[in-house]
């Protein structure tokens, strides 16, 4: 009996309420009052109109593979001209050293690690790579051609670095 009561007027009013809600929702989402409202929205560095819009992610840039990238300033850590995906660097093993150390460079043509990396911070020469130099990717990174997100005014090495050179 109760069910039948609902089936009469109840369902119709429920449908009305739901559709009204949907219309209100749609109005909110589709920005029913354009112009004034859009200008007031916060604009981040995103290119989209607002944070409610989803933007399309830019395509992943191709890695610069195989070619040595020239340094911008002297003593800049050279960038890595190959993919490093999945190369293990942890306390068990450092995959970079397989090619960039020992017999590696002469056989593979990989760049040998600089002698400065075999000196610890007290200036003592070591037989192995200094601990502070172990994590290659802290300074050396694969390079990609991507548009800058923000501008940069750095065109030469910081003054502090220049002083150190002398």
């Amino acid at each position: 009996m109760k069910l039948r009561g609902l089936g009469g007027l109840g369902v119709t009013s429920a449908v009305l309420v739901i559709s009204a809600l949907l219309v209100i929702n749609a109005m909110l989402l589709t920005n029913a009052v354009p112009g004034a409202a859009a200008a007031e929205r916060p604009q981040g560095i995103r290119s989209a109109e607002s944070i409610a819009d989803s933007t399309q992610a830019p395509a992943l840039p191709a890695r610069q593979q195989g070619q040595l990238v020239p340094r911008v300033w002297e003593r800049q850590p050279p960038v890595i001209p190959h993919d490093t995906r999945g190369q293990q660097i942890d306390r068990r093993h450092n995959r970079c050293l397989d090619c960039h150390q020992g017999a590696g460079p002469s056989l593979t043509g990989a760049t040998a690690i600089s002698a400065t990396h075999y000196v610890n911070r007290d200036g003592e020469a070591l037989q192995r790579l200094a601990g502070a130099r172990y994590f290659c990717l802290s300074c050396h990174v694969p390079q990609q051609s991507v548009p800058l997100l923000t501008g940069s005014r750095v065109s030469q090495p910081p003054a502090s670095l220049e002083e150190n050179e002398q």
Partner: protein
Amino acid sequence: MKRWFREYWRIFRSPSVHFSLGALAIGGFVAGIIFWGGFNTALEATNSEQFCISCHEMKANPFAELRSTIHYTNRSGVRATCADCHVPHDWMDKIARKMEASKEVWGWIFGTINTPEKFEDKRRELAEREWARLQANDSLECRNCHHFEYMDLTLQRNLAGQIHSLVLSTGQGTCIDCHKGIAHRLPEMSGVPVWSWQLLEAVLQQPD
């Protein structure tokens, strides 16, 4: 107990009274098919990734490491999972490996590697066992998918192509000599020649 056994032995040995030879032969044949199919299906089930990572040890350690590698996910979706590398495809070898694996059940019961620390302590030992196995069967599990005959060496990177044509084609080396730690993280490698440099040096310095 002995009498019970003897009674059944007598029934087992005496000829059939109620069933015809044909019925027994056909019945046996059908039962054989069902048994063999069931056996292989069960065996196949223990080869699935699902089965392997049903143990916490496997899911938390080796499987977690596999997930970021090219054998787990890549652009074309052709992949190798646990059994493709760790279980031989050949039937006899497969059964031998499956029997060996009973020791792993033992390890599971007693929790030999049930924490990351315990796994870490055993990592070198476990890795060495797999290296030895692949060394012994000439990297058979690699070669199930990676056929040397169909590798276009000119499409490989310069050095890789050279090494493959000099070392691999002549049988002086096998895949696992250089390709260690491709699906799981390497253990502490002291004393292990990672690329087998000596081998490469010897080969590369040979006159043409």
